[in-house]
């Protein structure tokens, strides 16, 4: 028996995907032209699947700050914070994040994935219980597993279900941590955070909110869903990423818990990984300043989100959640989703293809993420190409059924 035998089914499914066209999970951009455009197979493509919400990846000031950091601090740190030292820029960025979020401290990680691993597995241990939303991101599930805590899932976005499960736990002795996301990456739906806060307060447990997709996007100051709901004081731990609105690579955890920094010498994903590169740190520091100094970026992002939402809705597409910078279009079948994804690329539009089991409720999705850098003309073009892709699918479907 081969070690790879267990992947036979999933490999066969992947082969079927390849037979239908390009590999949606391994698309190669030959050249990145701007925050919203790339060349793929020699074709100009509008990027509507990059989570580059504020479009800051080509901001001249941020590029300059990043280049300067490489000149002064080098290309890599070549080691971990605990064994090989912290750069003053790591510490400065942590202070900037903490100040921005109004928290006592922040810890920086090399990726958003590792931030969830490090914070969750650091906070919870085998005697504790984590209650997590059932639609949580893989990094949350993996962090939970690494913690060794008892893991209880509650129904997606259901404070009532969380309440019921906390009640069932009763006077269980261990610590209890509730985990939700600000907005959920696949559908773009929001957590009813005020209601979750009410439940967590009544049960006297702690709350962690992953603001990966909501930081820089929600709240008057871009601090995320907790700011938008006015409940920041009730959120005990914030996790976020640099790889979306902040246009870099990395992640962070932040808290005002006076014991929070004990995680620096107890959390294995923090201790035993290379520290963030000077370039990533410098980019995140520069883009964080932009989030604060350029609130118009958020307005542009939301204008674009509304324009695409309305445009696709007017064309009769089914959109999974209320307007947000993530717009997930539900397709009736995997075949339709894969065909349309290929037709969109062919027409010059890149979106994300999302299939079960990576999606809630077995949905097949074409997931768009907007950017402040998209122009109204680009958004119109995206709608036109969606319409054309659907026509192409209908024609293809008709020839298929005629052949049968």
């Amino acid at each position, binding site marked *: 028996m081969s070690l790879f035998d267990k992947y036979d089914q999933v490999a066969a499914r992947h082969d079927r995907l390849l037979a239908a066209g390009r590999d949606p999970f391994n698309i190669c951009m030959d050249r990145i032209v701007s925050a919203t455009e790339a060349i793929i197979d020699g074709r100009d493509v509008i990027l509507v699947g990059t989570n580059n919400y504020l479009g800051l990846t080509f901001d001249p000031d941020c590029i300059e700050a990043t280049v300067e950091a490489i000149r002064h601090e080098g290309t890599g740190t070549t080691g971990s914070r605990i064994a090989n030292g912290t750069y003053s820029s790591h510490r400065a960025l942590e202070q900037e994040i903490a100040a921005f979020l109004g928290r006592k401290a922040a810890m920086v990680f090399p990726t958003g994935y590792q931030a969830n691993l490090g914070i969750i597995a650091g906070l919870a241990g085998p005697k504790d219980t984590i209650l997590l939303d*059932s639609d949580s991101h893989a990094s949350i599930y993996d962090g*939970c*597993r690494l913690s060794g805590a*008892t*893991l*209880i*899932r509650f*129904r997606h976005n259901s404070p009532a279900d969380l309440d019921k*499960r906390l009640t*069932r*736990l009763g006077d269980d002795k261990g610590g209890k941590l509730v985990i939700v996301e600000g907005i959920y990456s696949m559908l773009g739906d929001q957590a009813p955070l005020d209601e979750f806060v009410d439940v967590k307060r009544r049960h006297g447990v702690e709350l962690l909110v992953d603001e990966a997709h909501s930081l820089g996007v929600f709240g008057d100051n871009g601090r995320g869903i907790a700011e938008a709901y006015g409940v920041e004081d009730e959120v005990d731990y914030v996790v976020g990423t640099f790889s979306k609105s902040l246009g870099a690579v990395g992640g962070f955890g932040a808290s005002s818990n006076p014991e929070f920094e004990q995680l620096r010498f107890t959390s294995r994903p923090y201790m035993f990984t290379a520290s963030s590169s000077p370039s990533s740190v410098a980019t995140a520091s520069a883009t964080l300043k932009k989030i604060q100094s350029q609130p118009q970026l958020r307005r542009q992002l939301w204008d674009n989100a509304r324009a695409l939402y309305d445009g696709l809705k007017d064309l009769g597409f089914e959109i999974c959640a209320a307007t947000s910078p993530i717009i997930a279009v539900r397709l009736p079948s995997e075949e339709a989703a894969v065909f349309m994804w290929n037709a969109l690329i062919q027409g010059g539009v890149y979106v994300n293809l999302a299939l*079960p*089991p990576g999606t*809630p409720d*077995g949905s097949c999705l074409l997931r768009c993420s907007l950017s402040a850098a998209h122009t109204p003309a680009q958004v119109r073009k995206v709608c036109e190409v969606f319409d054309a892709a659907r026509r192409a699918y209908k024609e293809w479907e008709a020839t298929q059924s005629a052949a049968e």
Partner: protein
Amino acid sequence: MQWTDDKVQEEIVTLLQPFNPKGIELTPETDLSADLYMDSVAAMNLVMEIEDRFDIDIPISLLPDVNNLQDLVDVVLAQKSKG
């Protein structure tokens, strides 16, 4: 109510019907993956239905040992006896 192996099985068979579109006969040995083609997400959704029906929590760590219908019955009885 005192839950017995048979009663729990009967309830789970009912909850399994939506996951059994081909209507195969459900026995204690019915394998969720091999016989009912349930993926990990479908299995997790089924577990939530079972949790609601029996008013229990089934921690995720118990799921790797759940392969067939009898395993589900055993988990429910074990969690019920804890409550």
